[in-house]
């Protein structure tokens, strides 16, 4: 008999929503979807996974690497000393992209400038000057393209 009564109250609460008398009448076992917070019942149907940064920041997982920036070369682009940059090797380096360049055995973060006659690595600070790449005289290649920067405020 008590069981039926409980059921009746639950129904009433669910359908009208007006006769709410506090949750004391029910234990959590009476209402399968409610959790201990007392909030579950209504929200359960709308449960999501939450925000996953990887989804937004990583486009191609096997080709994505993280690097730590050291120095002020790219301050003008909002990339500061100590920031983490996300580098995607599968993105094509086109004119204007920020890239990780390999120049004579060194890894540099610079803006890539390429037109018909020349390739330049351009820093975003007045303290450094652009580097003109002489393809015959230096070892140059592109390691990857910077897609995001993680900066702590």
């Amino acid at each position, binding site marked *: 008999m008590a069981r039926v009564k409980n059921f009746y109250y639950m129904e009433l609460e669910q359908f009208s929503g007006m006769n709410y008398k506090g949750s004391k009448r029910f234990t959590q076992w009476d209402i399968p979807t409610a959790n201990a917070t007392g909030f579950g019942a209504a929200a359960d149907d709308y449960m999501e996974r939450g925000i996953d940064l990887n989804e937004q920041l990583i486009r191609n997982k*096997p080709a994505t690497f993280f690097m730590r920036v050291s120095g002020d070369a790219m301050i003008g682009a909002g990339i500061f000393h100590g920031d983490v940059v996300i580098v995607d*090797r599968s993105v094509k380096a086109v004119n204007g992209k920020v890239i990780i360049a*390999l120049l004579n055995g*060194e890894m*540099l973060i610079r803006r890539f400038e390429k037109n018909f006659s020349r390739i330049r690595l351009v820093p975003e600070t007045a303290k450094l000057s652009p580097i003109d790449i002489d393809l015959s005289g230096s070892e140059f290649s592109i390691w990857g393209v910077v897609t995001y920067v993680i900066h702590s405020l």
Partner: protein
Amino acid sequence: MTAIVDCNSFYCSCERLFRPDLHDKPVVVLSNNDGCIISRSDEARKLGVGMAIPYFQARQLIEKHQIAVFSSNYHLYGDMSRRVMDTLRVLAGEEADKEEGLSPAVEVYSVDEAFMDLHSIPPGDLALHAKHIKDTVEQWTGISVSIGVAPTKTLAKLANIIAKKNKKASGCVKVLATEEEQRVALQETRVDQLWGVGRSYAAKLINWGITSAWELRNMPEEWAHTNMGGVVGVRLIRELRGQPAIVMEEELVNKKMIATTRMFGRPVTALHELKEAVATYISRAAEKLRRQASAAKTVSVFLVTRDQDHLTDFKRGATIHNYVTLPKATSLTNELIKSAIELVEHLYENGKVYKKAGVMLSGLVPDDSIQGNLFVPASENQHRFLMNTIDNINFSMRDDSVKFGSSGMNKDWKMRQELRSGRYSTRWEDLISVR
């Protein structure tokens, strides 16, 4: 058609990716405990550095030519391997295949090799397709690979060897699609270079006057059945003739036994140090055991003593081992440690010098304690909960934040890895820096 994709000097390539200054310089990677050379770049090979030779033997050569030396960095290699395999899966369209219920087109064969099923590629496009795979893996992961393509796995392996022999000429790709191409390749290959022909069989074959792979291919199947280990020999002959006899295998998801063995960083003589080492290995093995939701019925312990007559480190000493069968299969670290420690106490001899120890968990069965089991005492379910908690903490915090006291706090005996590079691709604190 089947392709084998094989990374070029894989460990060295991983190191170089984050060390552009070593781009065309000789590089070698050492085995566990800095014992032997296990990977060398083409430049190091050309300087005469042998494969699998002890580090100290090559030391003079290494110093003379200023060859860069690295201890093995398995965190880095493991991550890079996953990247290479993932790239191949993307290229093979594996996700789409899975949805259609097709068998996977990529079979991971080892840390740096995978077979790929290319049956859907028209024969005329094979070379171009292989080149595309090679270029994409290299672009995405920075690891260069060689690809051999042929109708069977054995011939694909052979094609790969040919592709690697002269990388410049082949462009690291070799296709053996026609019978004529296969004949030429088999004729210029010695039997001992074939995949699946061990040293003892190679010696036998050469003794019988069968020196080239082509001669072996032309032997009758019945002959192979009698002289080359029955079905295995027949399969080899068929594979050499271009008839697939070794099929693409699905990945072995659950291991049938789990072993952890390591060389000590220095000779160990004390019982308590041996116990610590074995407890640590058990913890590692038990973690793997739980990851595949198994429980073990048998615990084995190995101890390798140093040969008293030889001062050299690599001569094989005597292995002593013992095992115990548990009354009930378990995945609980504490129970496994307890049995293993008893075995160590039993095996230990005062005065002996130990250089290596190992543990093995076998007799694996599905772990029924995972879901709280109604028919076992409640305490066991609590233990299981504790194990889960430990595994979760160690996974998120890394490096065994929580462990059993018996594994010791400062591990003097731990592996020597003096020249290990950073874990560039898996650790925040080890990220490579760019200027």
